[in-house]
């Protein structure tokens, strides 16, 4: 029943990520995006099904885990890093230029209500 556990983990990570993505402060959004990346990476990864103890290296065993999702996730991790880094720097720049860390760049008193 490892699958059930894994789905719960993915679900909770997604929910936490989404919740933080919707916050008004840039730092929370960064954490949300990072969290969402974990969830998405795991989600793509498990699309090949769960395999325990058998890597996708030829000659090591008879059954292999699915290599394709792994290759996809490997690039996704690196791209995810680039994206997070860009967001972080954008937030820093916005803070430096605008003097606050609200996602809309205003001091953040009223904008939230319009959403």
């Amino acid at each position, binding site marked *: 029943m490892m699958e059930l556990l894994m789905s719960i983990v993915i679900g909770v990570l997604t929910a936490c990520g989404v919740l933080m993505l919707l916050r008004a402060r840039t730092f929370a959004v960064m954490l949300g995006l990072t969290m969402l990346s974990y969830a998405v990476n795991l989600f793509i990864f498990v699309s090949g099904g769960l395999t*325990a103890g058998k890597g996708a290296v030829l000659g090591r065993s008879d059954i292999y885990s699915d290599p394709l999702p792994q290759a996809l996730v490997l690039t996704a991790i690196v791209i995810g890093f680039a994206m997070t880094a860009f967001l972080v720097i954008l937030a820093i720049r916005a803070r430096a230029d605008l003097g606050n860390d609200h996602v809309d760049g205003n001091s953040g008193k009223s904008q939230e209500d319009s959403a």
Partner: protein
Amino acid sequence: MTLFWILLMPLFGCLMALAARPWSRSYQALAVALFPALALALLVPLIPAVLAGEVIRYGFTWLPLLGLNFSLQLDGLSLLFTLLILGIGLLVILYARYYLSARDSMPRFYAFLLLFMLAMLGIVLSGNLLQMWFFWELTSISSFLLISYWSHQPDARKGARMALTVTAAGGLALLAGILLIGQILGSYELSEILPQTATLQQHAVYPVVLLLVLLGAFTKSAQFPFHFWLPNAMAAPTPVSAYLHSATMVKAGIFLLARLYPLLSGTELWFLTVTLTGLSTLLVGAYFALFQHDIKGLLAYSTISHLGLITLLLGLDTDLAAVAAIFHIINHAIFKASLFMTAGIIDHETGSRDMRKINGLWGFMPVTATLAMVASASMAGVPLLNGFLSKEMFFTQTLHQGVLGSLSWLIPVLATVAAIFAVAYSARFIHDVFFNGQPIGLTKTPHEPPRYMRVPMEILVALCVLVGVFPELIIGSLLQQAAVAVLAAPPPAYSLAIWHGFNVPLLMSVVALVGGILLYINRKALFMFQAGFNETKAIYRFEAFIQRLVRRCRHSIEKIENGSFQRYILLLLLALLALAGAPLLELQQLRGQRAALPFDAMVVVGAILLLVAAVATVLLVRQRLLALVMISVVGLMVSLAFVRFSAPDLALTQLSVEVVTVVLLMLALYFLPHKSVKQSSSGHLVRDFTLASAIGVVVGSLAYAMMTHDAASISSYFLQNAKSGGGGTNVVNVILVDFRGFDTLGEITVLGIAALGILKLLTGIPRFMASADGEGRLWSKDRHPLLLAVISQALLPLALIVSVYIFFRGHNLPGGGFVAGLITAVAMILQYVAKGVDWVKPRLKVEYSTLIAVGILLATVTGLASWLFDRPFLTSWFDYFELPLIGQIELASAIAFDLGVYLTVVGASLLILANLGKITTRYRPVHNPVQKEPS
């Protein structure tokens, strides 16, 4: 191949126009004219073969999967148009030399004109419909540039915009029609589709195809009700009108009809649509031409009327109608171009185009007047001139058709009515401009134009007469071959003689001439009647329509896009929920048939730890450092999950990325406000919490369904071919550097771009130095703890060795360029953390941006190298070698590619972190307890 060069000549001419800028005006014109002249010289040797019935082709495959070939063909029809385009083009170049004033930019004009010539040649020489469409749109764009040449005039800007909107919209309809033709017939090559008439016409979609193509042709050729753009395009310089609006641009639509005549014509729908459109355009144009006071306006409406005449001929169901249509294309181009040139000369020499002011010019410019009178007589259809011959043929055809059934007799009657108006407006052109008293209120005293400005007119008028007197001799065989191309069969016998005896067409001509003169003499009453209409100009209505459209669009955009980022995210997530949730509702059972893995205590503990850390991150998000610690626990547990479920490569990558990310977020903590204010209201929290839970449930269920269902995967292909095809046993790495190498190349490029974007964002950022943390505690004075410095220095060589090892074993065992690059980056970052930028920078003289560039270049070049061996991009090569002492080793081109990946990853990671770290180091006010934040 010659065809290719002919097509390229105007392009060279276009560049020449720009290069010749420093020369005198005459030399500029000469240099530009050289290229169409060369094209003509290249064309001449091909003419005999084409006139003998041969079709010359040239082409090569370009994107065969899309059916897009580069393909050129020269048959009778293309030859006729090519001659018109190049010939009249040359005359217009000469004419424009004298027309443009010293204030006008000559290079710009010639460059646009030659660009247009290229586009036009492209249309008529294309052997592939898609390619033809490309040039078709290019004519719209270049004509936009030409019409708006005097861009300081609002009329020019509006007219150009209108022409572009109408013709480009028609172009899109045409594209749709062409794509449908390609779908139905399986090809875009003219030589392949033209014979398949029956297949297309019996297809259910044929009416749609026909209407779309006709829409394209009618907008381009200014057919009613799309004719309104042409009079407004008269804001263009007159050489442009002489070229575009007599012989070329507006004939493109007619050309398309003629080109696709064998494929599309012959059905009831074709006859009705084309005939009625042509007929109404013929009448509308002829009627309104009479009432224009602007000379160019008169000519524009007359052009509309003649285009309608040609369209009408193409819609008639007699075989000779097409021949008459082609004949009239030639004749109209010749006399209308010379008339536009007259208008330009008059405008140039009198400063006005208003026929109420310019009168009696016969006394000032008798030569020009004579030439213009001959040309307008041809326009009116006076015998012994070319216009008479094709008009006679037109009358004959209207008498023989039966398109409208029992009402078919209407067509010759209405044709005669239109001809009466044509004679009347031609008479007005002659009488009003050259006679009718003296000029009124002109700013200049008119005189003859410069000698060479008149030469193009003289040539064209001479052609009017020559064709009118010796039609068979001059264009007989060209007409014959063009007709063969249009009908896809030899036309029935016809005679181009001037005299066919006393018959009905001659009677119609006489009625038109006499009626036209009478109408002109009694024009006062008609003008009074016309003045009774409250005319609003088409251009104002059109502009108002466009502005309304724009306003409405802006309004709805503003409603959706209010500037709140949170709201965009919310809408996006709602859309995601709808899209991802809907398929789940259709799934009968969430649990699939695949055998499940049993629980195992370690995993349960790990999962609980992960869940607790994730929830803690959310709860502690305002205590930022704690939240950061918590999220790194999550990341660590995710890496462990990868280990547990057989993905060692992922675990290694995730772990090293985790380190870099946490360092980055730590730096972010430093730059962002240290204290976080509570922001969201309880209502919003509830809303967000509900949405987040819903998405979590959907994604979790989706993951569960996916994991428990069996699905056919393409992975077995990779597993089977990794060793034999890619030379490695680590299938994940082989996929990255070999099977899907192109994706990886794209990915490292994105990484490089992101890093450079970050570099750009960081330049010029105000330096920011906090001296205390959020609770007022001073930063430690011990900036670089000794212990950390010593350990990190000792670790560096070890880490580098590990990364080299990981890099080389990557092809066969877990590892590879990504992981090795991240390990190197982490080791270097540790140096920065332990010793500071000031210490590392002088010791490490590497430009990280150069590193990225070298990495991407290396990967690309490795891919390109396979071209040298005639293999597709990024085909990898490997072989085994025997080395003394070491034994058998494998060399693979994939290693070079992976090295590129390695360098890019190292460069990008370090570029980001080192530059961010750099902002903090110097000038820190260590002893200043007052916290200062940038404003």
